[in-house]
Structure formats: structure tokens, C-alpha cells
């Protein structure tokens, strides 16, 4: 027999005096996720919250197991940085059935009725800002644009579509290949890009780690003319922007995601006033001019 | 002449069964010392002790006069005693030159000096007049060439005493002659040779001295010139008349098994023979000369290059195991662990395998399986300590009985028995002989491939002698003396 789902939002407020235990199920071991975990840990410590952590290592089945384990430990809420942004149905259902509130980070779109809340990254806006930047930069000259993506998926599609829609009439995407979030792979893809489309002028790389790989490829080919735009806001990325190696990046840092996640989970559990259920990570288009104002990426 | 290596009062037993009793044995420099005896007489055990592979229970091994308590193969080799086993020990993927120099390739400035390696190998081979290209890959050589390369290797490593355990067992006449030449040259070069062979004429032709073993005892050591074939055979077989042929009152029936111009490469040339119901026909020949092919061809493991096999008048599809089984032909291998039994499975299950292969049932009914196996075990006298141990835990003789029970404990049209008493003690041997009699009595056509003359005399109604893959004689056993049969078998290889 399948029991009906009870949505966690119907639960009553948690006593503010109670020490909360929050479970965090992390999805990957790359830099973003590591920083996210660090900032959550720091914010949890200062907010007097116990944070339990589990790692899914990009395996959706492991993610579900981790959520199970968190439920067994009777945490007050589970925060999930998902492996596949749009594939958490099973996990959400499980948490709902067990009556454990579930909170998502870095997602694009969510069904709000089944979760405690979320911190979303406005990937559309990221794509749009970068596209607009290129449109402005090209002016009236036509330009070839390439995309080096992470892995295909709903979020990447949203970002890419917004990017392409805002490129203006002169810039044209001639190359679009994923590099599966791996720096080495991005380097290979960038090298192949240069071979296939030597006239490329702009490259949009879906994160900074991969962008650094692409940069290495361009450098070794002596191509300093290619403008790289990317997404992240890490120290290495900001440094590259300062050096002029990246033309632009968008800062939406795991640090702010992590801090917001802890704050909002606590607030939502205690039903504090003024806590938004689905909050958007603040982002900022960073170029050489404003690089020093960008928020820190990690702790 | 100085004594190179010597066994003094050496005894060895395996699990209570004595393989060697107080053996004294000495090999002089530059002599060919032949070691002969019936199967199981203890020859291999003796030379394993010489070469350090086995440690004697009592007695001593003396090399150049010095005693060696803990002799290991490596140590023996370092002291100049090496052995060429009946099974080859070349590295099949490497070239002849490299196999010759295994573990001691010549080097210059740290690098292998291939030119010198090939030159050295070629020189070593040429010195023995062995014509094998040094660049040939060992695994692709014929058996004779492999034997020659191995002998040359042991000589080249500084072997002063060379033990050759049945070097010609799997060789044809011409190849055997090449080995004989080599042995003569080696001994004239001052190398001592211990030569084991069942080919008595080659022994008589080669040996300076001959030691005869029987049942683990040394019967005689004499100069080769002082012995003749008849005397040697008598020394080997002794006065025993234990293998008395029972009175036969069965008459051969219809022709059941027909082998018609069966050919297989160079080993078997148009072999033709028939076996009738109630008849035991022995194929006899120098070990490995043709009759070892029979198992592969009759069982369907390999496809013959020509000829036909018929059982009860119907052709058996070539190279098809299922067809051979379905035709009622059972082939019992001489190599039970390679092709007969599954060592990891229990005795009872092994006994059930053929039935399962034939009937193809869906389920295994353990109760019935154990009940039937118990009957078979008691019929074949399989003795075990545990209830149903894996076959690998049995003694050799018991494994052999399991093998026979597995294949023959159901009515069969015809069967091939390859060395059916391989590694079996005297009592078990008698049991197995009775089983074979029983098979023939029931009407099975039995083809026996055995190198054991006693066994052939005891079991067979008719003997077919094969040489160089062809039938050279086809005689009824009635009236043949043991010595005559031995001479017939071992007599032709040197001619």
C-alpha cells in the first residue's frame, strides 16, 4: 500500500528554543559543493544548529540513500544540493512521507507545494546577462560564439536558451559541446573548438573551473583574443577577470547559497516572519571594472 | 670413473604407500644410465629426488661426493643437476633463444645483447647439432623440437647431470632418433645422463648401465651390454603371475565400433580398426605414438582431418561431443583432472554429470543423486573419509575409480579407455580390471589404449600395434607371451 504524501508545510512551527539538527546531502565533490558545505557548516555553527553531512558523489541512488539516512536520524530538515537538479522526485516523496521537511539549494525550478523551501539560482538571468554583455561588446560587427557546457539538463538548457536569446543579431553560436564539468575535458573541447572554428571570438563556459581549462588551451595556442564569459565568482575566476583573462563572469557564490540555506531553513522551521520560501541567490555580473566588489566565493 | 651423483639408501612413501625402498643409485661421469621399470615402479619419484623436487624420507643425496639434505630444484640446478620433465616447461610465447637463456640473458652495458644471445643460443644448439631457428617462437615448435630445445637449454646452463624423464614418449620414430643422437653426443662430451624410457630397445641401444626398479625396489644394475631384451623384461616384471588372465568363455559378437581410415595431421595416418561386442581390443604402441590422438577424435573434442567413426552401423558426426555420447560411445580420458572430472565438485555430483549431459533434466534431485551415487561408489569401490568430499580431496586411485564410474556405470555400446589404471594401486587395479571384464561381458565393445603391457595381457582379446600412426600388427592375445608382447611394443622404435 502506498501512503499518501503529507506536505511538510502543514507542520507546526518549531520551538525557537530547541537546538535544530539539519541534514545536508551534498551532490558532488567539485569546488562549488565543497565551498557550499563549508559555508553551511560555518553558518550552522554560529546559528547554534547541528549540521550532519552526507556526500552523494553524483550518484542519484546514493543521494536517495543519503536522504534515507538523514530521515532515519530524525533531522529537523534535510537540505539537498541535488545531483541532478530536476531528479529529486523520489527523495522529496520520501521526506514527505516521513514528515521531514526538505529544502533544496541551487535548483532552477521547483514544485513549491512539496518542499519546505529553496534557494534558487536564476540561471536564466545568468544566461541573459552574459548574452547581453556579448551583444553589447560585439556592437555592429558579426562574431562567432561558442558554448562549452557542463552536462545537459533542464538548468543548463534554461541558461543556454536565455544566453542565445540575448546575443543580439550579430553574434552567432557556431559550437556547443558539453565538457561534463571536468576541467581536463573542457581543455580538450576548447582545443578542438579552435581547430573546428578558428575564427571564434567569444566563448561561454558554464563554470569557471572549466573556463580555466579552456583558457589554458587558448593560451597554449597563443589565442589571447578570445573572450571568455563564464559563471561562478570563485577566487581563481575573479583573479582571471582582473587579469583580463576572462572577459566577464557572473558571481553567484556557494557561500551566499549556503548561508541563505541555513538562515531560511531555520526561519521557515520556526515560522519566522519575512522569510521567503523560495529565495533567489543574489548575483552580479563581474567585469574588470567591478571585480573588486564581487563577494567572496568561499570561506 | 668418478661418481657424479648418488642416492644412498633413499626411501620415500606417499601417505603410507611406499614408492621407493632403500634405493642405492649412482651415476658416473659421462655415462648414460637408464632407469626402467613398469608403471608405478618409482622411476619418476627417484629422479624427482635427484633433482630436488622431492625430499626423501630416509637416505641421502650426494652430489660430487657432498651430501645435500635440503636439496631444492634451484639448488640442484646450480649444482649442475637438471631435469627435463615429461611435460614441457618452455615459455611458449618467447623465442627459442630466449628460452635457452631464460634468467641469464647476456648483457652489455645493462642492455640485453640480442646479437650475442642469438649467437650463444645458436652456438649451444649447433654444438648439439640441434637444428632449430633461434628466432622461432617456442610455442609454435613441434614436440620433438621443444624437447631438443629443453635438453639444449639444460646443457647450456651447465648441466653436468641431465635427467631425461621419458623424452621420447610423445615423439615419433625419426624424432626419437634425433634425441638418441643428441644423448650419445652429450655423453661423449662428458655429461652424465639419467634416461627414463619405456622403449626398451632404445634403452638397450643407448645405455651404458641400466637400473631396473620394481615396486619401489632396485632389482638390478648392470651394464647395458650384459642385458638383452628378454632379460630386461623379466627383471622388470618379475616372477609375478598375479595378473592371471581369467578363463574367457565369451564370444565376440557383431561389429560395434568401426574406425575407418581415421587421420589427424601427422600423428595419425589412416588408422583402421574394428571392435565387436563382447570384445576388448587394445591399441598398443610406443607411448604417445598415435593412440593418444584417439581420445580427442573419438570423444568429439577435435575434428579428424579424414576418416569416419561408426557405432553400431551408424556414422557418428565428427567433432561433436553430443553425437558421440548419443551414439553410445564413451571415452574415458587418461588425464582425469584435465578432461574427466570437475575437481571442485563433490564425488556424487561428478558421478551424475554424464547422466545430466545426456538426459538434460531441469532439476537436480539430490536425494536420488546421492542414492544412485552411493550404489555406484560401492560398485566401484570408491573409498572416502568424508561423506561426499570434493573430488580434488581424493587420492589418485579413488579419483580414477570415480572417473570410470562416471562414464561406464550405465549400459554403453562402445567405450574407449585411456590408461584406465593410471596411478592406481594393485588392489584397485584388480578391481578395475574386473570392471572392464564386466563391461565386455555385458556386450560393450571396449577399445583399450594402454602403455601397460601387463594390463593389455590381462584384459584384451585382441591387440592392435600402432607405430607412426599406422597399424603394424593385429593379433589375438591368446597365445602371446608377455615377453613377446613387450618386444612387439618396444621393439620397433630404433629401427
Amino acid at each position, binding site marked *: *500500500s*502506498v501512503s499518501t504524501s503529507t506536505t511538510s508545510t502543514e507542520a507546526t512551527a518549531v520551538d525557537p528554543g530547541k537546538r535544530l539538527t539539519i541534514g545536508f546531502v551534498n551532490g558532488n*565533490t567539485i569546488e562549488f559543493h565543497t565551498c557550499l558545505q563549508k559555508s553551511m557548516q560555518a553558518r550552522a555553527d554560529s546559528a547554534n544548529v547541528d549540521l*550532519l*553531512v552526507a*556526500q552523494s*558523489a*553524483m*550518484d*542519484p*541512488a*546514493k543521494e*536517495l*540513500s*543519503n536522504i*534515507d*539516512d538523514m*530521515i*532515519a*536520524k530524525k533531522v529537523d530538515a534535510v537540505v539537498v544540493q541535488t*545531483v*541532478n537538479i*530536476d*531528479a529529486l*522526485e*523520489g527523495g522529496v*516523496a520520501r521526506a514527505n512521507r516521513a514528515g521531514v521537511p526538505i529544502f533544496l539549494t541551487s535548483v532552477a525550478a521547483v514544485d513549491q507545494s512539496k518542499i519546505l523551501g529553496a534557494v534558487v539560482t536564476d540561471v536564466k538571468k545568468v544566461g541573459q546577462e552574459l548574452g547581453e554583455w556579448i551583444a553589447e561588446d560585439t556592437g555592429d560587427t558579426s562574431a562567432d560564439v561558442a558554448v562549452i557546457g557542463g*552536462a*545537459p*539538463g*533542464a538548468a543548463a538548457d534554461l541558461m543556454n536558451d536565455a544566453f542565445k536569446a540575448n546575443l543580439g543579431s550579430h553574434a552567432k553560436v557556431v559550437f556547443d559541446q*558539453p565538457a561534463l564539468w571536468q576541467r581536463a575535458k573542457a581543455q580538450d573541447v576548447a582545443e578542438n573548438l579552435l581547430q573546428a572554428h578558428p575564427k571564434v571570438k567569444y566563448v561561454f563556459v558554464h563554470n569557471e573551473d572549466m573556463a580555466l581549462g579552456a583558457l589554458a588551451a587558448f593560451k597554449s595556442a597563443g589565442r589571447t583574443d578570445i573572450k571568455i564569459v563564464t559563471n561562478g565568482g570563485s577566487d581563481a575566476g575573479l583573479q582571471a577577470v582582473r587579469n583580463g583573462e576572462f572577459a566577464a563572469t557572473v558571481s553567484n557564490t556557494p557561500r551566499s547559497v549556503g548561508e541563505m540555506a541555513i538562515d531560511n531553513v531555520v526561519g521557515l522551521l520556526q515560522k519566522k516572519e519575512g522569510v521567503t520560501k523560495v529565495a533567489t541567490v543574489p548575483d552580479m555580473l563581474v567585469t574588470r571594472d567591478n571585480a573588486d566588489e564581487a563577494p567572496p566565493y568561499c570561506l | 670413473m668418478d661418481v657424479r651423483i648418488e642416492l644412498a639408501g633413499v626411501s620415500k612413501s606417499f601417505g603410507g604407500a611406499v614408492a621407493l625402498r632403500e634405493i642405492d643409485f649412482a651415476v658416473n661421469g659421462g655415462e648414460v644410465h637408464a632407469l626402467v621399470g613398469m608403471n608405478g615402479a618409482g622411476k619418476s619419484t627417484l629422479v624427482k629426488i635427484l633433482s630436488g623436487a622431492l625430499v626423501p624420507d630416509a637416505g641421502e643425496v650426494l652430489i660430487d661426493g657432498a651430501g645435500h639434505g635440503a636439496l631444492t630444484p634451484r639448488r640442484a640446478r646450480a649444482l649442475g643437476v637438471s631435469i627435463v620433465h615429461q611435460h614441457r616447461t618452455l615459455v611458449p610465447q618467447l623465442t627459442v633463444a630466449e628460452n635457452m637463456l631464460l634468467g641469464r640473458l647476456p648483457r652489455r652495458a645493462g642492455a640485453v645483447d640480442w646479437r650475442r644471445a642469438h649467437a650463444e643460443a645458436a652456438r649451444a644448439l649447433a654444438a648439439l647439432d640441434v637444428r632449430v631457428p633461434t628466432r622461432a617462437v617456442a610455442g609454435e615448435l613441434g614436440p620433438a623440437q621443444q624437447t631438443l630445445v629443453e635438453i639444449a637449454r639444460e646443457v647450456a646452463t651447465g648441466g653436468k647431470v641431465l635427467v631425461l624423464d621419458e623424452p621420447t614418449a610423445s615423439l615419433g620414430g625419426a624424432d626419437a632418433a634425433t634425441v638418441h643422437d643428441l644423448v650419445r653426443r652429450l655423453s661423449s662430451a662428458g655429461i652424465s645422463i639419467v634416461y627414463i624410457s619405456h622403449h626398451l630397445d632404445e634403452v638397450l641401444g643407448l645405455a651404458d648401465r641400466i637400473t631396473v626398479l620394481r615396486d619401489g625396489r632396485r632389482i638390478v644394475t648392470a651394464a647395458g651390454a650384459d642385458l638383452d631384451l628378454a632379460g630386461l623384461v623379466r627383471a622388470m616384471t618379475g616372477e609375478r603371475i598375479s595378473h592371471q588372465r581369467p578363463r574367457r568363455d565369451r564370444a565376440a559378437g557383431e561389429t560395434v565400433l568401426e574406425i575407418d581410415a581415421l587421420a589427424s595431421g601427422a600423428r595419425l595416418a589412416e588408422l583402421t580398426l574394428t571392435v565387436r561386442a563382447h570384445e576388448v581390443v587394445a591399441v598398443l604402441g610406443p607411448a604417445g605414438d598415435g593412440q593418444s590422438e584417439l581420445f580427442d577424435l573419438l*570423444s568429439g*573434442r577435435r575434428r579428424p582431418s579424414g576418416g569416419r567413426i561408426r557405432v553400431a552401423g551408424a556414422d557418428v558426426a565428427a567433432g561433436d*561431443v*553430443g553425437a558421440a555420447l548419443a551414439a553410445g560411445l564413451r571415452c574415458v*580420458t587418461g588425464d582425469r*583432472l*584435465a*578432461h*574427466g572430472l*570437475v*575437481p*571442485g*565438485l563433490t564425488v556424487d*555430483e561428478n558421478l551424475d*554429470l*554424464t547422466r*545430466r*549431459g*545426456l538426459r*538434460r*533434466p*531441469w*532439476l*537436480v534431485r*539430490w536425494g536420488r543423486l546421492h542414492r544412485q551415487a*552411493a550404489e555406484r561408489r560401492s560398485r566401484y569401490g570408491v573409498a572416502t573419509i*568424508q561423506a*561426499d568430499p570434493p573430488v580434488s580431496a581424493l587420492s589418485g586411485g579413488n579419483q580414477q575409480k570415480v572417473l570410470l564410474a562416471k562414464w561406464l556405470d550405465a549400459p554403453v555400446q562402445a567405450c574407449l579407455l585411456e590408461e584406465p589404471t593410471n596411478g592406481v594401486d594393485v588392489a584397485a587395479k584388480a578391481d578395475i580390471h574386473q570392471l572392464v571384464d564386466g563391461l565386455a561381458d555385458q556386450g560393450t565393445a571396449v577399445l583399450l589404449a594402454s602403455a601397460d603391457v601387463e594390463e593389455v595381457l590381462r584384459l584384451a582379446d585382441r591387440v592392435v600395434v600402432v607405430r607412426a600412426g599406422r597399424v603394424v600388427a593385429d593379433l589375438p592375445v591368446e597365445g602371446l607371451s608377455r615377453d613377446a608382447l613387450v618386444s612387439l611394443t618396444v621393439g620397433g622404435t630404433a629401427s
Partner: protein
Amino acid sequence: MTAISTPQRRAGLVVPPWFLRHAGVLAVLLLIGVFTATSSDVFLTGANLLNVSQQIAVVAVLAAGLTLLMTAGGIDFSLGAIAAVAHGVAAQLIVAGVPDGPAVLVTLALGAAIGLVNGVMVTWFKVTPFVATLATSTALGGAALLIIGGQSVSIGDHLMMIGFGEVLGVIPVSVVIAAAVCVAAALVMRWTAFGRNAFAIGGNESAARLSGIPVVRTKLLLYTLGGLLAALGGVMLVARLGAASPGAGGLHLELTVVAAVVIGGTALHGGSGTMVGTVLGVLLLGVVANSLNLLQINPYYQDVALGAVLAVAAIANHLRGRRT
């Protein structure tokens, strides 16, 4: 049949033989269990134990197929990839409107077909099993992503029965399926000619063939069965996740399955293996993962610990083997 006294009887103690055989793994399992239970009061709760069993259900189903195959001297390195393909196909079929039952059946048939391809490569073309299935594994890894277009494919409320259903109100359906598969595999290995033939083939292929056992057919069937069970695992995966998604199944699952079977004492070269051992191996890996989580061990250390457990179990197997 005389002298049927086993050494254990003589010692006056009745210990089942499987216990002795798997004493090493059992000891490691017990050690970890006791340690975790004393350090975390959650470990021994019914809810947690149910979790563990649910988490290992998919691994157990694949491991059952692999145990049979390895017993016969084969190996299949593509089981994880087949599961990945199957979970994608099932999701796409369901999304395309195919009812659950037929969708599952088609998926299972596909898995069996892929297994058969492996079998054909191994038996007809005589490619080494490891190489053949490494090739299919690579190809299927790509195919799995192609099938779902590299994106998660949600199946909504479908396959709820498999993913979330419960028998008798407590035992998850997935656990029941896994248990049924393992018991069935154990029965096949013990009571059917097919299963026993696998042992004979793994123990001595030449002897098996000469005994008239259909070696090629048995191997083809074994690979097919392996593929079928991997597909079943894939269906369970998609049912549990509620969606097909990139990264599910695949190499990670494959290695877990191989590790579980090997730790369970099934020989890589064939001829011996037990489902009891495999289940213990699967349990061990599941319990280790669970306890590392419960004990809040740094996730990076978890792999280090898992590797260490694997090494210890392998060495324990060897030492036990040497003593007898």
C-alpha cells in the same frame, strides 16, 4: 556410504558449513555492526535497517546475476550500464504513455537481449569476457545518456508499487523483490541442472563439455539472465528515484556489485560461489556505507574506509583459504 562423520560433528559442535566458509566476511560485518551500534543509537532501529535493506536491493539483484555468471567462470562488467540503459528506457516508455506492466516487460526483454549480445561475443567470437563487457559497458554508458537525452526524465506516480510499495505494511516491495531474486538464484544454483552446470563449466570447462553439458547454451543463458536481472535492477532504480537521471547505475554500481560478489567469496576464475556469500558481501558494503554516514565520517574518508574494508576482506579470504 560409510564414515559420514564431518570434522565439525566430531568436535561436538554443529556449525553449518556456509558459516565456516564465510567466517571472515561475517566477522568483519559483525565488527562493523557492533562498533556502529555502540556509537550510534540510530543504527539498530527498524527504520534504519529497512533503509539499509532498501538501499542495497538494487545491488543485490545485480549481484545475484553476476554470482551465477562468475561461478561459470564468466564476468560481466556491463551490468551497471545495462541497469542505466534499462532505467532510462523504462522511464521513456512510461513517459510515452506505455502502461507500467508492458513498459517493465519490454525493459526486461531489452536487458536480456543486451546480455545475449555479451554472451554471443564471449562464446561465438571468443572475446575475453572482461574485454567484451568492457566494450559493451562503454557503449551502453553513452546509450543510457542518449536515451534520456542527458536529462532527468520524471515518471511521476508510475511504478510507485515497486519504488514505494510495502508488503504487510512494513517490508518495502523492492526488498521483497531483491530477496526473491537472491533466494531464486540460490535455488537455481543448488537445485537446477542449469545452475549446477554453471559450476561444472566454471570448475572444468573441458570435462563439462565432454560430459555432454551444453556449454555454449548455458553460457548464453547466463549472460542473458545477467542482463535480465540488471534490467530489473534498472527498473527498481527508476521506480525508487521517481525519475531516470544521468549518473544513475553505470560504472559506480558495477564496481559495487563486483566488489560485493568478490568479497562474498565467489572466485574470479569460476567453479565456486554461493549466494549466501554474495548476500553477505552486499550487506557488508551496505552496512559500511550506512554506518559511515551515521557516524558522520567525512565523506572523503568513506571511500578510503570502503577500500580498506575491501582489502581486509580480500586478505581475510586469502588467509582463511590458506589455513584449510
